């Protein structure tokens, strides 16, 4: 399974990421999730979220999740980008791509990966007014 992980303050260029997609001819499904900063956090209007990470551990925990995902589903490739620092309302803080032979496993793996990330990857957010 190919892995590509980026945890960085750079904006996420979804168009460029899509343009760089590689799928072998046995693959029929690509699922994407873009998590975008909302204008409300706990019912209060915010302008941005500041993301902090324990960077080295975050990357390590993402790779552990990729290892586990590979055992569970026949995924050809995962690409994941998580922004750090200030991310304005309307901008993506998370982007995930899963490429698999069929739709069911691509959706299952993508949802599982995000659920596990929210449980295990040391990243925190602070709303900015």
């Amino acid at each position: 399974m190919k892995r590509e992980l980026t945890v960085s303050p750079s904006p996420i260029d979804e168009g460029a990421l899509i343009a760089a997609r590689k799928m072998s001819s046995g693959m029929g499904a690509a699922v994407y999730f873009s998590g975008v900063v909302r204008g409300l956090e706990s019912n209060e209007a915010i302008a941005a979220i500041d993301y902090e990470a324990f960077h080295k551990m975050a990357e390590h925990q993402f790779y552990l999740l990729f290892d586990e995902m590979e055992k569970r589903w026949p995924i050809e490739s995962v690409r994941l980008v998580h922004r750090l620092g200030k991310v304005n309302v309307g901008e993506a803080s998370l982007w995930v791509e899963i490429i698999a032979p069929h739709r069911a496993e691509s959706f299952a793996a993508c949802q599982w990966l995000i659920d596990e990330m929210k449980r295990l990857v040391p990243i925190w957010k602070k709303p900015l007014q």
Partner: protein
Amino acid sequence: MQITVHFYSYFKELTGCAETSEQLAHKSTIADLQAQLAKRFPKLHEMQNSTLIAVGVEYQGKAYELQEGDAVSFFPPVQGG
């Protein structure tokens, strides 16, 4: 032995620092380290039921036996995404 301790997210506000170091007896566990930190950082102690703990880049439980030079991190529930 000497242990480095890191705090993340609002645990830095609770303790007033991002990093500290502690002297511990040989064979001390994470629980021992927590007990020692509780005196200096009572607000951290209050959060102990929702505290996640790592040694290096791996999660560890309270029974984990620390070694000289270990870097221990304490942080609240994670919120990526």
